[in-house]
């Protein structure tokens, strides 16, 4: 669900390592999930999405995994680069036919040189 008032959790990784950012959702009826990247002072950018009839989807250097049994979503970033430093948000549609997204609280990813 929405956590707009909470401070962001943080994740620090070494440049070149893989990053895994996790997101838990509570609504078992959610059927569409998205990961966004937000750099400081900018609007969120779409990274990758996945529908509930899939459990894995790959993009360029990113993979999204969906575990509907435990209502868990993860974003894996391979060989992280300094440009990957940002806040990452997961989002879900709360039910079929919903025309809005519910955003998670976000995770701040910091890449150490």
């Amino acid at each position, binding site marked *: 669900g*929405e*956590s*707009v*008032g*909470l*401070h*962001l959790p943080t994740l620090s990784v070494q440049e070149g390592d893989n990053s895994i950012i996790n997101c838990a959702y509570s609504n078992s009826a959610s059927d*569409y999930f*998205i990961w*966004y990247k937000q750099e400081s*002072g*900018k*609007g*969120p*950018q*779409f990274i990758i*999405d996945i529908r509930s009839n899939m459990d894995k989807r790959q993009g360029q250097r990113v993979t999204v995994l969906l575990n509907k049994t435990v209502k868990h979503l993860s974003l894996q970033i391979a060989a992280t680069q300094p440009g990957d430093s940002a806040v990452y*948000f997961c*989002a879900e*549609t709360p039910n079929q*036919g919903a*025309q*809005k*997204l519910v*955003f*998670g*609280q*976000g995770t701040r990813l910091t890449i150490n040189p």
Partner: protein
Amino acid sequence: SQTIHQWPATLVQPVGSPLSLECTVEGTSNPNLYWYRQAAGRGLQLLFYSVGIGQISSEVPQNLSASRPQDRQFILSSKKLLLSDSGFYLCAWSRLYNEQFFGPGTRLTVL
């Protein structure tokens, strides 16, 4: 290709003054439109969304209102700003049941 514009980029307003933020989308028709607010270091709070001209759904009771006078124009307004209205305001658009695309945002500071 589609683009989304927001203006102004930054705004400093006194408490009690009115507000009008504008968002326009190019390159698509009949989009869903959204207004979000983001406090510093926080997540995104959905304020309003619209599935068509003149159709506005409000997500939270507040000091703000929204209007959609044209298909690709979404306006966020207030008659009297409060200190708590400060934040980063984001407009987004989407096609039916698909990902949302965000604009560059407006940073509002109410003094």
